[in-house]
Structures are given as structure tokens and as C-alpha cells.
């Protein structure tokens, strides 16, 4: 990653900044905001083409805090996937970034989430997962681990929903888990997710310092820093740099993306998790489920072959939003033909 002052578009990092955050000092979500800015800057995403969608929650407020030169839509609680899908259909060239919370996605939004995965809307979908409802002051969400204790003593009695596991079962082509505190991994994952054509899930553990940061909370900073097991070191090499890299260092897996860019995964111990192997992905998820002592982060599953929605819908190059009457109205003859059937 070059540390140039300006990117391929000639834009500076500040051109990707947003409004000042109003989240609590130290909130994991603010880290992710910075990571999104970093990723968009380095990938040279055109801000005017960015659509930032979200639901409701502390996490869902963050689209206001990055890429002010993009178009934001902060919709209603749990229903961002449909809005994002609609927008994406209207103009398939838009880079659609979705930011949601665990409540927003795994509780109220579970249905829409599953169906957006199934439809394979071409978007990056980041769940800022803190295991609680931050904005409504700390109730447990559906991704809270069973048995977890909250400030005040309440204990969560229901098993967590693992969004990555569900996404894999629903055929999602890009499934990653990460930690807001791991900027390097997150930036690489976001850049790869942007490149992926289809629905790309990043379930990012993002601690809520105010309501779920007890030292033994598996969604808290202390715990995560100690118990985050990386599946591999993730790097992203864009298409224009990929040419010049002629050799991949040992113990590194190169996962090619359709546009010529690739994801490089370097081993951190003996084995490298290969995300293109669905069985391996399932094993990682099962290990994660059983191993209460760790969270496994990295690119869990990747399948570039899933056809994104705009292709299923055969959308042409010119966005639907720009078509005019000459392009949309059948001619007089065709019109008469239609009416003929009704005489």
C-alpha cells in the first residue's frame, strides 16, 4: 500500500472524510469509519459514485462520518438491504457501501439480510458487531454470546446468531470476520470486498465501550486484543499493481479476483486457511462456535463465481435512472400491437 498523498484519482485522504463523529469516545465504530476512508482512498474509489446506506443505530449513523462527497441514505431500522438493492438496480455503477449493526442486521433485519445475500446485490455489507444495541442503551442483541454478562449484571440467555455461518449457507460469495481494532486486516478486506462483484459480508467485531466492554466480554476491546486468532494475514493487491508483483512469498495463498486484482493470504502458523474451500470455511466457523476462548478473523469464504443481481437482471450499461421516454416508451406501432390484444 503506497503512502502517497494522493490516489489514482488525484484525491487526497481528506477528500474521503465525513462529518465529525458524535459517537462515544473510543467506540469501535469510529475505527471502522477510519478504515473505510482508508480503503476508499487507497482503492481510488470515486466519491461521487459512492452510495452509503444504513439502517438505524450508532453503527448506522456512521455513513455520515465518511466520504461526505458520496450519497448517503440512512433508512429505517433493519431494512437497509432492500433500500441498497433498489438503489443498486437504479444505477448499477454506484459503489454501494452498507453499514449496519448487529441489532440492525441480526435482530430486526434478519429477513432482509438473508434475502439480500440470496439475491447477491453487488454491495459491501459491514456489520459493526458489538453484541448490543448501543443506541438504545445496551440491550443484548441476537449476536450476543450465550452466558455473556452485561454491565449491571444481566446475563444473555440465548445463543448468538453467527451471521457468517448463515451467509455461507445462503451462498454468499464473500464472507469475512474481522475486528475493528485490526486496521490492516479491515482495510484489505474492505478493498477486496469493494472489488468483489456481489454481496460481500464483513462481520466486524466493533466494541461498544459504553455498554459492552467488560474485560471478559467477547465483544470487548481487552478480550479481543488477546483472543483474536487471525486465520491469515490479509492483503489486497489491486489490478494495476498486480502486474508488477511477479512472485508471491512462501506460505502465501494468492486468491485471484475476476478483475485482475488479488487477495494475498499469508500464513501465521503452519496452515493457511483457504477461503475458496467451503468445507474449510465451515470448519473454521464450527471451530469458532465451539472455541469460546477465541474469535477467528480473516476471509472465511470466497467464491467469485456467484452472479451478482445486476447481471441476473441483465441491466445494461446506461443506468435505469438516466433513461428517458425515447428509450423507455414502446413506439406507436408496438403500442397498437399491445392494444390489439384487448379488442
Amino acid at each position, binding site marked *: 500500500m503506497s503512502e502517497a498523498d494522493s490516489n489514482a484519482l488525484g484525491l487526497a485522504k481528506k477528500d474521503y472524510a465525513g462529518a465529525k463523529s458524535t459517537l462515544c469516545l473510543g467506540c469501535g465504530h469510529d475505527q471502522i469509519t477510519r478504515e473505510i476512508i482508508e480503503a476508499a482512498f487507497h482503492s481510488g474509489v470515486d466519491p461521487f459514485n459512492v452510495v452509503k446506506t444504513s439502517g438505524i443505530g450508532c453503527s448506522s449513523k456512521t455513513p455520515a462520518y465518511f466520504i461526505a462527497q458520496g450519497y448517503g441514505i440512512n433508512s429505517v431500522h433493519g431494512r437497509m438491504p432492500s433500500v441498497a438493492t433498489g438503489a443498486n438496480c437504479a444505477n448499477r455503477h454506484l459503489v454501494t457501501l452498507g453499514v449496519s449493526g448487529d441489532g440492525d442486521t441480526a435482530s430486526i433485519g434478519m429477513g432482509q439480510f438473508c*434475502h439480500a445475500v440470496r439475491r447477491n446485490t453487488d454491495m459491501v455489507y459491514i456489520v459493526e458487531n458489538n453484541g448490543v444495541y448501543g443506541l438504545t442503551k445496551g440491550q443484548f442483541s441476537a449476536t450476543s454470546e450465550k452466558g455473556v454478562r452485561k454491565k449491571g449484571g444481566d446475563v444473555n440467555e440465548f445463543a448468538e446468531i453467527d451471521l457468517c455461518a448463515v451467509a455461507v449457507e445462503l451462498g454468499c460469495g464473500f464472507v469475512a470476520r474481522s475486528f475493528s481494532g485490526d486496521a490492516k486486516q479491515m482495510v484489505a478486506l474492505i478493498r477486496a470486498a469493494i472489488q468483489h462483484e456481489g454481496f460481500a459480508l464483513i462481520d466486524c467485531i466493533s466494541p461498544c465501550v459504553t455498554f459492552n466492554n467488560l474485560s471478559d466480554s467477547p465483544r470487548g476491546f481487552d478480550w479481543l486484543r488477546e483472543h483474536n486468532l487471525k486465520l491469515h494475514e490479509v492483503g489486497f493487491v489491486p489490478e494495476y499493481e498486480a502486474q508488477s508483483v511477479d512472485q508471491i512469498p512462501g506460505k502465501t495463498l494468492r486468491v485471484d479476483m475476476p478483475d485482475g486484482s488479488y487477495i494475498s493470504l499469508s500464513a501465521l502458523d503452519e496452515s493457511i486457511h483457504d477461503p475458496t474451500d467451503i468445507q474449510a470455511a465451515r470448519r473454521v466457523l464450527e471451530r469458532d462456535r465451539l472455541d469460546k476462548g477465541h474469535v477467528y478473523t480473516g476471509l472465511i469464504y470466497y467464491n467469485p463465481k456467484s452472479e451478482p443481481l445486476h447481471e441476473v437482471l441483465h441491466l445494461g450499461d446506461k443506468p435505469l435512472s438516466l433513461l428517458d421516454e425515447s428509450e423507455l416508451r414502446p413506439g406507436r406501432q408496438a403500442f397498437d400491437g399491445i392494444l390489439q390484444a384487448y379488442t
Partner: protein
Amino acid sequence: MSPTVVNDFTVTVATVNGSGSASSNTILAKTVFRMGVPVTPKNLFPSNIAGLPTWFLIRVSEKGYQARTGTHEVVIALNAETVAKDAASVRKGGVLIVDEKIAGGITRDDIAVHKVPFAELVKPFAPDPRLRKLLANMIYVGVATDLLGLDRETVMKVVADQFAGREKIVKLNQEVVKVGLEYSRDTFDAAKCPFKVESRDLTRDKLFIEGNAAAALGALMGGCTFVGWYPITPSSSVCEELIHLAKEHRVVGGDHRFAAVQAEDELASLGLVLGAGWAGARAMTATAGPGISLMAEFAGFGYYAEIPAVVMDIQRVGPSTGMPTRTQQCDVSSCLNLSHGDTGHIVLLPGGIDEIYEQSQQAFDLAERYQTPVFLLSDLDMGMNYWMAERFAYPERPFDRGKVLDAEQLAQVKAFARYKDVDGDGIPYRTLPGTHHALAPYFTRGSGHTETAAYTEDSDEYQKVVDRIKRKIDGSVRDTPAPIHEGDPDCDVGVLHYGSTRFAVEEARDMLAADGIATKAMRVRALPLHAEVVEFVQSCRVVYVVEQNRDGQMADIVRLKVPGSAGLIKKVLYYAGMPLSATTVVEQITADQREPSHV
């Protein structure tokens, strides 16, 4: 023998659904239509797929009346379960055509009973019992053709059109029709049948089309590029037909100039539509009552964030699941104020099939001009039945895309505040995502926002926006279809109506006039109400608001619009689910004229 009745009676076909009678019934109706005689079929079907009683009414009316009459002159009875009731329903002097196998208990001697051995007649054509059942329906087409004097060639042509492209099937059906016809000719004396269809030239240039197909065609011509939908009776065919048309007329070089997404439910439907509308598509959904309820939260978001959307509500009987295959006009007030908090939507109320076509184009213009969800209310009666309609006009005007600023315009005007009233009409300007200009990007939210689209919790900033939105919606009367006046302006008995109620009201007013009760009428076509409604109500001694719901929803809306109208307005209500008949209207108005109720 009764005197001959020409072109003024109803043929009722009683069968079970899923038995394939829909084709035969449509053939009968279309034959009348092609003979130049006004005809209105109505399919009264149950909420299941097969095996339950179903009725099909074919009203033939030289005068062009299109409402249900409530009487049955000719009944074709094929359903053992309901045959007693069906036989009893035939009007004195009427005709019953009945499957001989189920005719055992019929004892009426005030009607002509024609027994037909359906099974036997079709046996030679079909060894398979399922096919036999289907073909049996063609027998009664033949019998009716003979008895009612339908034009034989026209019938055969309609059969051919019905099964166009499938030559063998056409042949087979035509042959069976002939068998029915010949059986009737050999067995009954058509001359004695008092009900006759005589050719006229009254339907030339008219269409014969379902309301939902008209809505779909309107959406196509109106430039709809996105449809997000979830199946629900009686709305599904709007979207299905639209997709069908788009596949035919909007695919260029393999590229689709439309996107249709079948959603997982109606919350998602409207979410899809708002996302698409926000990003610049002309986007719509169609649904029925339960879907409207599920859209409540998103409707308020669209209202407050000012996003164009077209929502067609093909109304059916509520509340809750209600009677999904029966008709009502019961969602008027819920659509008008859909969502929590203070809202108020633009509602279109087409009365008749040509208006459905017109308004479902216009809905997209209004949605984009006023940047808000627009509700178009049709109903099961209009939506799922065939109707005669004036031939649809090819639209001449370009789309109204409303106040959208592109990069060039921004470069010129050099200023953009998303939620500011620049022109004094309450309507702000918007930009589309993807616009390449530094002024263009803005943030859309359903939470408090300022004129420049910034987040706010400031009282004044909040109020400025919601006050403007109210002004904007109130101002939509500039562009929404004005109400239609009818009758002598000096008359002081008014009838106010809307939507499909039109057909019964028009006929009822003729009947009332014949009875010496003169009326004038106003047909409302949009909400918020236009000023004309106030004038109309105030010019009356009494105004009957006719509608198909229990609570008199429109009557209440009118009362709130017209101060001092409580004493004038009387609710004429019918909500039992059948299409409204003129007699229902006449009875209630006549009773009140004789003995005025005090409201």
C-alpha cells in the same frame, strides 16, 4: 311467454373454480363485445385455487351500464353444490341452463329450464376426465350462442383468438362449441328464449381489458423502470403483466431497460422502491391491504425524506386478511395517512379503466415532481375483471422528472440545498446519486434534518421542513386530476363518489332521475381534495357520499375539508364485498329522500 329482451340482461355462470370455465366465460363476454354490444363480465371467485363455488356474471347492456345488477336473467348451472341456490336465483321469466346430472331437485315453473347432458356430449372428444371437464365448458358456450342468438362466426373467431397459436386446441374447442350449439338447436327452441343479443356498433374503438392490465400498461408508458413487489391478490397481475410487457418491449440488445425484483415481503417491496426512486429510477410497487399495512414505516420515511415512489393498492375486503377475493374501497384513510406521526400522502382515485391507464402514468410524474410516495387506489372489481374502456391514447408528453439538478445545472446555479423551498411551492430540488459535481452530494435521513440535509434536533429547523412538506403536498392539487362534475349545477341533491363506485352511481342517477329524483354528482379523483369539492358540497342541500367501506372513510375526509358540512353529508355505504349495484345506491338514497335521516 315473456316479451323479448334485447341487449339488457345478465348471464350468470355457476361452476367450481379451477374447472377451466374462465376461458369459456371470457369467450362469451368477448363475443358480445365483438358484436358491438356493451358487456361487462364479473368473476366472483373464492379465495382458493380449485374446487370451490364460483360465479361469473356477464352483463349485457345496450345503454352501456357496467355495474352489477343483482339480478340473474340467464343462469348456467354446473355446480352440484350450489345448484339449488343458483336455480332459485333465476329471475322470474328467466332461463336456466343446467347440467342434467344435477337438475334433479329443480321445481321452478316460472322459468325455462334447459337440461344439458354435458358429460355425454363431450365424451367423444376426450377420454381423459380432466380434459372432459375443461371441454364441458365449451358446451355451454354453444348452448348460449344458440339460445341468446350470438353471432356464430364471432364466437368461433373469439375461440380461435383465445387459444391463438395452438391450432389443435382451437379446433377441438370450436368443435365442442358446435356440438353444444347443435344440441341446443335440436333440443330447445331458441325462438322461445326471451333474451337476445343483437349486433350493434357501440363498442368500436373500445378496449376490453382488465384494470390491472391497464395499470401495467400505464406504468410501462409512464416510464416505470423498477418494480419491487410481493404477490398478493388482487394486485399480483399488475406486476406480472408489467414484467411481461417489459420483457417484450424493453429489452434492447440483451440489455433490460427495467428491473423487477420479487421481494420477500411488502416491507422490502417499498424499501426496494424507495432505494430505486432515491437513486433515480421511476419505481413502483403494487399490493393490497395487508401489504399497505406492512409498508407503513417506509411510507413515512418516503414522506419525510422526500423520495418518489408509486404504490398501487388494489383494494380487497378488510380488515386483516378479510375476504381476499371480494372487493371494497376500504384503504382510503389508511393510505392517506399511512405511517405514524404527521403525514398526508397524495392519493389517486381512478374511476374506470381508462383513468387507471392515465393515472398510472401520471403517478410517476407526480411522485417525481412532488418527491413523495403517491398511492394509486384501484380495487379488485376494476383490477381483476374485464371492462370496456375508451381506446388508450399514446402519451404525447415527455416524462415529468421534477426538480432534478444535474452536474451542468449545478455548475450554473452554484447552490443546492436539498430541502429548501426555492420556488415558493414547497418543492425542493434534488440530485441523483452518481452526479459528478461537488455541490451535488447530500445525506438522506428519516431523522430530523435541516434545509441543507444536515442532521438536526433543533426545533425551528425541524419545523421548517415539516411545514414545507405540508405545503408541498397541499399544493399537489395543482397537478392531480380534478374532480368531475356531472348534472345540473342548480340541483341541490349531490352524489359524491370515486373509483369503481362510479359505475353504480352513474346508473343509479339515471334510475333516480326516472323516479323523479334529480341529482348532480361529483367524482373525486385525488386526495388531498380539490377546492371544487368544497363548492360542490356547499351548493347542495344534501350530499350522498357513496363508497364501499363500512366507516364512510371518504365522507369523513370530505367533512373535514368542508366546514359546516356535517348536516349535509350522508353516508351511502356498501361493504359486503360484491361489486356495488345501482339498486343498492338507489334504495339508500330513495329511502333517505322519503324520510331524511338526521346525521
